[in-house]
């Protein structure tokens, strides 16, 4: 009961403060950016410059082939700038590539160099077979270079036939995927929602220390843990509100909001307890700032793994923001893995409780002095 009153009091205080509204405003801003400035799906077509050093006949055949792959079935005459002069180029757009046919080899090299794109010269060898000259940047991995080396050995028709015969067996069929826009939401939920408490709770505690609230608390009948928990409660309410502001308009009724609430509460509790523990080692925010900042940097790293699918080293998976990111992703998916969400929530609840217990012990000693 005391806890409840204390929580309500904190909530009232918070609603009068500026901070609460900054969070709401931030959520609205993120929503606006996601809705109006971020497209459903990002453009990820690779740009290639090609120069055909071939007899007219072969050139025609080659261009015919590219034309067939073009999404509109035809090319576009465009002007490109090279070295302050404009050159004419045929532009083709296929499903995964943007191809520019460049008439002069020198221009091709300059374009590939300046725009950091792939350049290729196609020519005939002594036996009248096609031969390729690739212009890469130099930082491409050995594996990618190997792939380029073998990509033209077999002729296209044989390759297409082999590709069509590939047997792909998914373990689960009706997997739902997220659009690029929806894919950003777990990042927002993780950093603006779940992990927000890490930094803010410390600021809260130091503020109260400064204003002498904590000393006043020592003479009341409430215990320290109730005070700490009511602070965490306010942060959790804020993060739920700001998360819903972003989530509802974009995802509608698709996500399971009960699970969302569970994951937000447990991970938010964990982050706040961690913030409390860190703050307990310092006298003021200035001192705690460095450590908290360092923690923030470390937990940002899994974002990179989240955005780049091929990069997922084990040590990144150990960082707390990794399961949180993927937990939120499962919530957004139609057939999300409920088990995983429950496991992650339980894990963060347990760790959060342990951290909270330790901080409680530390604050009992330090707050009242």
């Amino acid at each position, binding site marked *: 009961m005391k806890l409840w009153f204390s929580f309500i009091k904190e909530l009232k205080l918070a609603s009068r403060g500026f901070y609460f509204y900054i969070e709401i405003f931030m959520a609205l801003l993120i929503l606006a950016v996601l809705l*109006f400035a971020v497209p459903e799906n990002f*453009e990820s077509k690779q740009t290639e410059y090609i120069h055909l050093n071939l007899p007219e006949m072969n050139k025609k055949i080659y261009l015919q082939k590219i034309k067939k792959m073009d999404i509109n079935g035809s090319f576009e005459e465009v002007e490109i700038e090279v070295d302050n002069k404009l050159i004419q180029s045929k532009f083709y757009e296929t499903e995964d590539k943007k191809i520019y046919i460049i008439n002069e080899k020198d221009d091709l090299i300059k374009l590939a160099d300046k725009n950091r794109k792939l350049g290729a010269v196609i020519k005939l060898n002594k036996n009248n077979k*096609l031969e390729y000259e690739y212009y890469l940047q*130099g930082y491409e991995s050995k594996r990618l270079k190997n792939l380029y*080396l*073998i990509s033209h050995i077999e002729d296209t028709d044989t390759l297409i036939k082999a*590709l069509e015969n590939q047997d792909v067996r998914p373990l689960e069929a009706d997997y739902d995927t997220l659009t690029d826009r929806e894919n950003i939401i777990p990042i927002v939920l993780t950093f603006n929602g779940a992990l927000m408490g890490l930094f803010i709770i410390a600021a809260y505690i130091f503020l109260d220390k*400064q204003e002498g609230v904590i000393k006043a608390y020592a003479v009341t009948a409430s215990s320290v843990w109730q005070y700490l928990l009511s602070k965490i409660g306010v942060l959790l309410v804020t993060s739920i509100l700001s998360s819903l502001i972003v989530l509802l308009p974009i995802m509608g009724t698709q996500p399971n909001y009960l699970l969302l609430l569970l994951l937000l509460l447990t991970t938010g509790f964990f982050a706040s307890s961690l913030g409390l523990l860190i703050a307990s080692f310092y006298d003021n925010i200035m001192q705690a700032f460095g450590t908290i900042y360092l923690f923030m940097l470390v937990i940002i790293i899994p974002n990179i793994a989240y955005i780049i699918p*091929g990069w997922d080293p084990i040590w990144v998976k150990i960082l707390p923001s990794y399961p949180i990111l993927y937990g939120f992703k499962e919530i957004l998916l139609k057939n999300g893995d409920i088990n995983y969400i429950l496991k992650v929530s339980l894990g963060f609840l347990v760790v959060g409780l342990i951290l909270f217990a330790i901080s409680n012990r530390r604050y009992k000693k330090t707050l009242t002095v």
Partner: protein
Amino acid sequence: MLRRIISIFKRDLKVNLKDFISLYIFVIPVLFAIAINLFTPGINDTTINLALLEGENPEQVRYFKDFAKVELFGDIDNIKSRVKARDDIVAILPNQENYYIMSQGNEPKGVIEFAKILNSFYQLDIQIEDTNVEIKDFKRTIPPLKKQLVNTAILFISILGGMLIAINIVEEKVDNTISAINLTPTTRKTFILGKSIIGLLLAIFGSLVLIFITGFTDTNLIQLLMIVFVSTLLSLLVGFIQGLNNDDIMNAAGSIKLLFLPLIAGALAIELLADKWQKFFYWNPFYWAYKGNDAVLSKTGSWKEILFYSSMVLILSTVVYLFLAPKIRKGLE
């Protein structure tokens, strides 16, 4: 005036050193740089992860290792649970005469296509020795991702400078020293300039450290410092306003957090969005700062370009300043 500016700066430095915060702040760029150096080689390796059966076909394992990251497993069950894991990995498994691709079902299309191509190459027995491709390159060693990370880190540090100022000012307020300043011959301008130095130094020092450790030493440093300088002006400005208008650290910290949003939005817009969406970000000074840094780090920036980006940042910062100047004046009273 200059003497007073310096003495305010000296005082800030002393206080900050006492709190160890400068230590952290000087250490953070170094850590950033080391982290970037450690991660990028792994991230840059654009390829897929394959799970294969151990001992089933050693020659196939050798073949795939030239093109993909290969993990070996003892039996099908282990492979299944690996494929079901959260990251994107597909398995290539024997099926009577042939091999099939086992996927989880939620991989990006590109991953499956890549696996199909590799498996076709293997089935057609295409070997690197028979290549008809000659590879030439422009001798670049720094991958684009590293450049992007360094760029973002530089802007991050400039915000950190703003944060430092905000916290310093709030601290002055809590100690009631701002009103005391009004009684001294120190003018408002002097106070502002004096307070700015520590944030500015942090940004410039941090950017230089980052660039030296991550190996961008042959970029045009003057161009870079110019962009760092103007973008730091903006964070300093915001740091000031937050410091002056907020009575406690809580609110100051919260509002500075707002600055990270345009920073990330600017960087993501440039890296991920198509040309037609770019105009929606022209209002964002960090967008221009990121573009400027990118031009410098890629060593493609002409002075004309750099001056344009810097002046865009400066103009937008001035607009912010004009908008908020009354607040600064009020805050100092």
